[in-house]
């Protein structure tokens, strides 16, 4: 393969990987924006989203088949279901802790993560579960470069979801309320904004996007595992920090950058794919050292 082919192929791989990272990173950054919580259970929400998609797919595959239409319906229903799961987690686990010291709620998030992981471990017995989608292997050849239709659809879907989120945030009353809540909660209450409701909507959207990523990952990679949320949780967190945590365009950018850097990183001589995690976390450290607020983040000035 020529060098340009390698570059293009890794570009495609990076975009696919980056789409997953970006979708999950959005949940991190939105929740951090409104409640200043690093929701370390978010990777597990992605994992549960994958399983929710799997369950819906096995129910609808009889009528819709297990092709793209079946997967699309599974994804949408999984997003709604897991969105409500996110709201439930917020109400049960985080709401009572909002006025507690920051460390308590962080530990609560770790506990939620363990609960979800172990629940799925118990249900699946720790085995890999085949997702059961049948998307075919078609694609287009561009010279030596091969791009599957699945890759197109996956990146396209992620793009549509992110664009919709951006429109929601910038163009609707609820989106504006969400930004306002991330700036000054008390002021929002005086504007008649039901802050708890806005927080619930934020968790719904963040969890829904993670579920979309989980379902797509299941369909794309072919299997699910109770531990699949752990690493992507850390990676998405890294992406959110690279982009600037709290910034929504930052999470999208950070996800894509991380995905691309990882794909290209595997091609550097001496750094095989076994080292790609080391590579991404080194980038995290570099960003924290040289631009602690992230690429699009703002410096936070605490009011006295």
């Amino acid at each position, binding site marked *: 393969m020529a060098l340009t082919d390698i570059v293009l192929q890794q570009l495609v791989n990076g975009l696919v990987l980056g789409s997953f990272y970006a979708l999950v990173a959005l949940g991190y950054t939105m929740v951090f924006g409104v409640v200043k919580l690093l929701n370390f259970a978010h990777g597990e929400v992605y994992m549960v989203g994958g399983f929710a998609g799997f369950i819906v797919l096995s129910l609808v595959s009889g009528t819709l088949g297990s092709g793209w239409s079946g997967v699309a319906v599974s994804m949408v229903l999984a997003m709604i279901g897991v969105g409500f799961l996110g709201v439930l987690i917020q109400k049960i686990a985080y709401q009572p802790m909002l006025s507690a010291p920051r460390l308590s709620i962080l530990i609560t998030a770790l506990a939620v993560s363990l609960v979800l992981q172990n629940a799925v471990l118990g249900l699946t017995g720790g085995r890999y579960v085949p997702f059961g989608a049948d998307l075919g292997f078609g694609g287009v050849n561009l010279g030596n470069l091969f791009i599957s239709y699945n890759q197109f659809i996956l990146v396209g879907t992620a793009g549509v979801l992110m664009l919709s989120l951006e429109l929601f945030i910038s163009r*609707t*009353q609820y989106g504006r309320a969400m930004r*306002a809540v991330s*700036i000054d909660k008390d*002021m*929002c209450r005086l*504007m008649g904004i039901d802050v708890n409701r806005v927080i619930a*909507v934020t968790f*719904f959207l963040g969890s829904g996007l993670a579920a979309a990523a989980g379902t797509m990952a299941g369909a794309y990679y072919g299997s699910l595992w109770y531990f699949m949320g752990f690493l992507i949780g850390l990676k998405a967190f890294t992406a959110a920090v690279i982009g600037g945590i709290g910034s929504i365009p930052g999470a999208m950018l950070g996800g894509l950058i991380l995905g691309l850097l990882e794909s290209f990183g595997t091609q550097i001589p001496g750094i095989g794919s076994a080292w790609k995690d080391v590579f991404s976390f080194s980038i995290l450290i570099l960003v924290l050292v040289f631009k602690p607020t992230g690429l699009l983040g703002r410096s936070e000035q605490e009011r006295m």
Partner: protein
Amino acid sequence: MALLSLSAVTLTFAGNTVLNEVSFNVAERSVTSLIGPNGAGKTSLFNSITGFYKPQQGSIRFDGTELLKLKPHQVTKAGIARTFQNVRLFREMTVLENVMSGAHCRTSAGAFAAILRTPAQRREEEEIRARARQHLEFVGVWAEQGRIATTLAYGHQRRVEIARALATEPKLLLLDEPAAGLNPTEKHDLVQLIRRIRDEMGIAVLLIEHDMGLVMQISENISVLDHGEIIAEGTPKQIQSDHTVIEAYLGRDDGEAFLDE
């Protein structure tokens, strides 16, 4: 009948009595001022009305509703808006967006309608934008609608804050030291603005203010709060000649300021 009616409101923090059996009324379409030395409990009274503090005793009735049971966002929905001593606009949002966020409690499109961007939600969004424009024109800062709110001159930020409060469509507007940090011209404009809010929009105004000239000029009624108790009430003339009031201000740093006016 009074629009806002406080009766025997008592608020304590860890054994300290901040408000002691405070009773007073604000009439519809009136301008009422709440004055008193620093630390008298004026801002605590505002926080009690808006639902941020929960007084242990008493009752706060507004337009037929008991406010003590309500959460802050419900109080706003009932028709009370406020501004702050130190202007608190949403940083990083434009002037227009700040005012539009004030209309949130008057919208009916829910979160799902917003996610799906239904035609009804889009229409409502346009209405909110149009009303926000009216409010910004009313306070005279429409020309700066696209700028980030916190980059405006201080006097203009105050006007944006007032526009944002008006966007909640209140029947009563609470202004916490609206003249603080304004120059004489801006103070003059503020007096005009408060009168227009009352006369043209029919909104009652309750203000906390230290600038006695402004208070005497604009108020129909004045209540004086000292050590958490109402020590005098009346028209500007009555207050100026009230001995308890003068005593409350004398012997304090701002006593002379009061007598100067």
